[in-house]
């Protein structure tokens, strides 16, 4: 296939990428600006990163963000994997379509609605809003992503492997733990990374779910920006962007590599038999 790369294609591609990445690039560049004025370039410097790391308020927010991301993504991974397993394995049960629709619905529900409904729920339950409620809220929305990733792997999973495990004396849970889970592990891990990054950069839902005691980094940035831009925020945003980028790339690499390896194994198996 040697199709010529026409000038039209090249232009649209460039425009698209500029549109997508120009703001982020500018932000990253200005995070290395030595001037205090955000819009005036005065030479390269990493001093704002230093300032950032000495600012206790930002550090606190960072710790909270990481805690929330770790716990909520783990919770979401467990719940999402279980939901995916039930949806793919349990065969046809009454209300299955409804159930699977309901799991995927939060993917398209606006964050504001999700946040608001969670807020109402927390108030109704009389929960003290803080880090706990943020964790619950994040687990709720990222669980759908995990179950999408995991169920797409489970669909191609040979069910006779689970049957073989049962046949050899495993309880259903043991069969899941010692056969299914190790085989679908790449999908589970990439689901976890995905929900970790989703939790890192969420603002809207965190705002609804948090109380005065807990501020995450995106919330902190948002409130700072309303008081005026400062270069520290550029530095912080750059760090966040890097983390999220690494997470997303790792997640897709893991699932890609796993599926390539699986295909290769299947091809080898076919070639040999």
């Amino acid at each position, binding site marked *: 296939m040697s199709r010529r790369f026409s000038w039209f294609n090249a232009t649209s591609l460039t425009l698209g990428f500029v549109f997508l990445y120009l703001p982020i690039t500018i932000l990253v560049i200005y995070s290395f600006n030595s001037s205090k004025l955000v819009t005036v370039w005065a030479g390269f410097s990493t001093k704002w990163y230093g300032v950032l790391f000495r600012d206790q308020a930002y550090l606190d927010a960072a710790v909270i963000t990481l805690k929330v991301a770790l716990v909520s993504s783990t919770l979401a991974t467990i719940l999402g994997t279980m939901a995916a397993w039930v949806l793919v394995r349990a065969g046809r049960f009454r209300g299955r379509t409804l159930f699977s629709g309901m799991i995927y619905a939060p993917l398209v529900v606006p964050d504001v609605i999700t946040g608001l409904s969670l807020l109402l729920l927390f108030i109704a339950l009389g929960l003290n809003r803080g880090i706990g409620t943020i964790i619950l809220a994040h687990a709720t929305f990222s669980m759908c992503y995990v179950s999408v990733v995991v169920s797409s792997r489970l669909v191609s999973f040979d069910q006779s492997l689970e*049957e073989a495990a049962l046949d050899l004396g495993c309880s259903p849970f043991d069969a899941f733990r010692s056969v299914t889970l190790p*085989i679908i592990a790449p999908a589970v891990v990439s689901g976890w990374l995905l929900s970790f990054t989703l939790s890192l950069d969420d603002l809207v839902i965190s705002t609804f779910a948090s109380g005065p005691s807990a501020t995450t980094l995106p919330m902190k940035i948002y409130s700072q920006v309303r008081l005026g831009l400062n270069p520290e925020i550029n530095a912080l945003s750059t760090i966040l962007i890097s983390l999220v980028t690494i997470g997303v790339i790792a997640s897709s690499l893991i699932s890609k590599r796993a599926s390539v390896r699986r295909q290769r194994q299947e091809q080898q198996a076919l070639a040999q038999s």
Partner: protein
Amino acid sequence: MTRPDPSPTTVFAPWDDPDEPPLIRFDNVTKRFGDFTAISGLTLDIYAREFFALLGPSGCGKTTLMRMLAGFETPSEGVISLGGQDIGPVPPNKRPVNMMFQSYALFPHLSVADNIAFGLKRSGNMTRQQISARVDEMLELVQLGKFGKRKPHQISGGQRQRVALARALAKAPKLLLLDEPLAALDKKLRAETQFELMDIQEKLGTTFVIVTHDQEEAMTVASRVAVMDHGRLVQVATPERIYEFPNSRYVADFIGEVNLLDGAVLRKTKAGLTISWAEGQPPIAAQGPEDLQKGANCTFAIRPEKITISSDKPEGCANALSGRVLDIGYLGNISTYHVELANGQVIKAQMANNRRLSRRAFSWDDEVWLSFTDSAGVVLTA
């Protein structure tokens, strides 16, 4: 294993003994998938220490039958009992049954040795040393001693099949279900493994239910053979009886080679039946069922090797037909002659090749006589 040696004079035939309780009993079992009936009204007894072979065309329900025994499918109707107890409510992991899957179902993330050890580790009463000794023993058995550390995708199809077999055998269960266990093996290894299986059964007293597409295999290893068609049992009998006395055209045609001649009863005497079957051909003298009436339609079935070929009309033989050699199929130890009769019917006859090819008695287009005794074939009504 301490098992009273059966004295060599008693034949192993528990199915003929009305006092012998069966190990497995299918009682009017039906299995439906949606509105498709995979097994319909099947009743069957399988006895302890049997080597029971299921034979039938693809899609006739053999795997479904096995899966119900292993506990992966529940019968839509009817009861399956094991050792006198209804096993309907028993989950697969609690059944004293192991199954070798048609797709092998090896665990891709575990090595060959760990695949074999998988069930042993879960039986809970073996030490680490015992398990690894048992794994080595199984690896030896299936001649994969050097492959223990490999992953399933690093070995060949036939080797994978042997690993699956070893894994199912490792726990030495009461009942072993083998779904086409030897299909991917070459002839020599298959013969050795068949022998091993029979040996294992002798030693452990395991009951085998085996699915096979290979009739020869069923004939060699099985104590009884069940021929299935569309979810029903057509005939269940010992290999010899299935081969010599098929109960229907279907079974006669399915097992081995056969000539089927459709006709009707012309005369019935004490000595046997006379069957008219084609214009201008002499009627066939045969032994047949008592209840067959004169004029009834029937099919005369005769195996090729029961027919003798000669160049002159044989004296004093019950049946003799004349024809012309149409084709000769050379199979090494035997040759199959396709002989066309005057009415166009082609009959297969087999002869052992006890001479070299160059000295073969008959050749293409030779006029020959086919002869057989009146007890060489069977008369079928179904």
